[in-house]
């Protein structure tokens, strides 16, 4: 292999004394001292979570406060690490939304198994399960880290939803609808 010898210019006296270089270095650090710190003081300040972030999977309710999950169990089937367990159940007779859809009697996500892949969110036909912006999960026991239905709803809260599926179903049942 051909080697090319790079000609190096001899250093000038100023360069050999290092002093101008040291001064320019000092200028850089002094400039840095007046910049605001870039540190995010984590527990006090939270980072901005970008949209589309896949955090902890949660169950959400519709704007009227009804649970959206109809316990179709698609997420349970699609979940690669088998972290989701659903026991389907009926909505009680005396409830306002009875006879319209089913609801999960028990919904568990084992956070020790969950790999945050987001397939459950993708597969859910009811848009009931979302991976939101919670990124730190802690617990003192294994049992605590199996999130139950109430915990999942508490984490999920209510997301805006413009489908109003329940209203449509109700009115279809009362007035008749060609599609149902």
């Amino acid at each position: 292999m051909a080697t090319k010898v790079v000609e190096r210019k001899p250093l000038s006296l100023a360069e050999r004394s290092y002093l101008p270089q040291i001064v320019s270095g000092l200028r850089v650090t002094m400039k840095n001292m007046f910049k605001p710190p870039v540190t995010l003081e984590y527990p006090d300040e939270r980072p901005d979570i970008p949209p589309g972030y896949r955090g902890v999977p949660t169950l959400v309710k519709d704007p009227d406060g009804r649970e959206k999950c109809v316990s179709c169990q698609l997420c349970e089937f699609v979940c690669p690490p088998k972290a989701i367990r659903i026991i389907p159940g009926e909505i009680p007779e005396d409830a306002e939304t009875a006879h319209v859809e089913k609801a999960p009697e028990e919904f568990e996500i084992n956070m020790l198994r969950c790999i945050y892949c987001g397939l459950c969110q993708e597969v859910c036909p009811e848009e009931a399960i979302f991976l939101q912006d919670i990124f730190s999960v802690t617990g003192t026991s294994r049992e605590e880290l199996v999130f139950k239905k109430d915990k999942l709803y508490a984490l999920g809260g209510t997301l805006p939803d413009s489908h109003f599926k329940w209203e449509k179903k109700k009115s279809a049942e009362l007035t008749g609808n060609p599609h149902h």
Partner: protein
Amino acid sequence: MVTDTLGLVMKAFIVIGAVMTMAGYAVLLERKVAARVQGRPGPNRTQIPILGSIPVIGTFLTRLGVFQPAADGLKFLFKEDPLPGHVNKFYYVLAPMVAFIPAMLTMTVLPFGAVTDPVTGATSPIVLADLDIGILFILAVSSLGVYGIILGGWSSNSKYPFLGGVRASAQMISYEIALGLSILPVFLWFGGTLNLFNVVEGQSQVWTALVQPVSALIFLIALFAETNRLPFDMPESETDLVAGYNTEYGAFKFGLFFVGEYTHIIIGSGVFVVLFLGGWTLPFITLPAGMVGAVLSVLIFLAKVFCIVFFFMWVRWTLPRFRYDQVMNLGWNKLLPLAIGNLVFYAIVIAVIEQLN
């Protein structure tokens, strides 16, 4: 006689307390400067129960890290003080003291202010011991500090401290010569006096750093080497020697090394201010006589020392460490001839000036 001694002891305690506090806060300053240079906020969590919970001031002081040195100091005190089995116990325990005591001793002759008698107009220094050979005392005692480092390195009976100790001794000896030679022109300039008070009084109009910039530069560089500060922190060089001479030390013994190091920096800065930056005087300004002038002079001195200490920190977080052979090369091949040339040059200049007068 007894009251005289008592007064001196009181004064000594005040000065020691002040210097120790300054050493503690120098650590804080170091951490803050490091943080700011690196875009971090630095220590800002430590709180003292009542003082820290005052609404605005408490938060401000906490963010400033004012309570951090107390926490650091207490940590050194309350940690378990281990004595490794493989060390030479006598020298191992002795070393931190030998490192600490000279650092504290040098400040006895360092004048840090002046008081002018309102009646007679005579000026006298504020100093623990006004020696006529003050600078010789400082040079002699501060060079004893290296024994602590060497002893610590040897007695630890382990590779890294040993290497650190060896490096420290070689470096200290090399730079001591340049250090001593660089300040000779200063004392020639002030008519051969070795008294630090006279040197400062001679600078009331023009600072020595302006008259003899080369002397100041050599002294500053040698000071960095003598205090083991980056870019000359060969004895410690944590990237290649773990922690250098104090690798085997912990708890309070390490604390003594640590405080001694920072005391060294403060005293070294004080000597630099006295020799080259006009001490407690300001050019073209005459301080009022009496107590007010005395307090002002001490404050001026402290402000100047603070600037130099800040400069120490600033340089530390700017420059990378020299390689060991570069340190030796710089000391013996560059600084020493430069210091000798500087001395000869100023000797001739001063002789010419005296002939002309």
